[in-house]
């Protein structure tokens, strides 16, 4: 198999509870947090936390070997670099 350990049913229940709680927090934050900047930062942080929980526990990356982690991380880093490379198009006034 891909890893020495896999997510058990009990692990899955705990992760599911966290995912549901974080989703509820996201929706509540939209109506509660007054600062736009703070809200965006909070929502991005919770989305990152939820995506990490799914990747680490449901996709077993927490227990995967280095090769599979590399396969998952490399395109993710490229994707973030791609978006970062587009930032000058947003912030510089040459448009």
């Amino acid at each position, binding site marked *: *198999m*891909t890893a020495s350990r896999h*997510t058990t049913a009990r692990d899955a229940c705990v992760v*599911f509870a966290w995912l549901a709680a974080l989703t509820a927090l*996201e929706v509540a934050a939209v109506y509660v947090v007054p600062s736009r900047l703070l809200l965006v930062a909070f929502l991005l942080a919770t989305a990152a936390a939820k995506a990490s929980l799914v990747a680490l526990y*449901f996709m077993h990356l927490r227990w995967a070997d280095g090769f599979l982690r590399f396969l998952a991380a490399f395109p993710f880093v*490229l994707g973030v670099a791609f978006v970062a490379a587009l930032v000058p198009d947003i912030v510089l006034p040459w448009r």
Partner: protein
Amino acid sequence: MKGAAEARPAKAVPNGIVGMWLFLSSEIMFFAALIGGYIVLRLGAGPGGWPNPEAVLDTPLLAFNTFVLISSSFTMALALAAAKEGDGPRARRFLLLTAALGCVFLGIKAYDYHHLWHAGTTIRSGLFGNYYYTLTGFHGLHVAAGVAALAALVPRADGTEGAAVEVEAAGLYWHFVDIVWIVLFVILCLV
């Protein structure tokens, strides 16, 4: 003296799992391009240049849809746990439940499209509509493909080790689709 080839034991990663991760790598780049384009247009629109998602979208309904997809990831994880234990009937039940939750997600998405379209937000009504339908449409196609794959997998989940690898590969795809929606829900519906 032992040779270098004997010194390191091989790790048994099934070809199907490696193949699925390679496929998901290309999918990450696909969605990175779409999401990157959206972020550039969204931030470049400036204050007042983009509709308030709360005013256009049915946020509570889409939050519920997020919960549906998260629940489907949960049942998929339970299907894999059952398949690993060799419990074919339980794995099949959870696979069916996962596919059913995928159908619920698509049904709510169809209702959302219907509601949006009749409220005047179409794919041709502006950048928001264009990107909303493009991003969620491609994601919906991935969900539909996942439902079809799960339906095809149900009769094959017989509790053997080979079946467990197939369930694991399908699960990787399903969880990836869940992650994409987690990101889309925040950037399209909440920010």
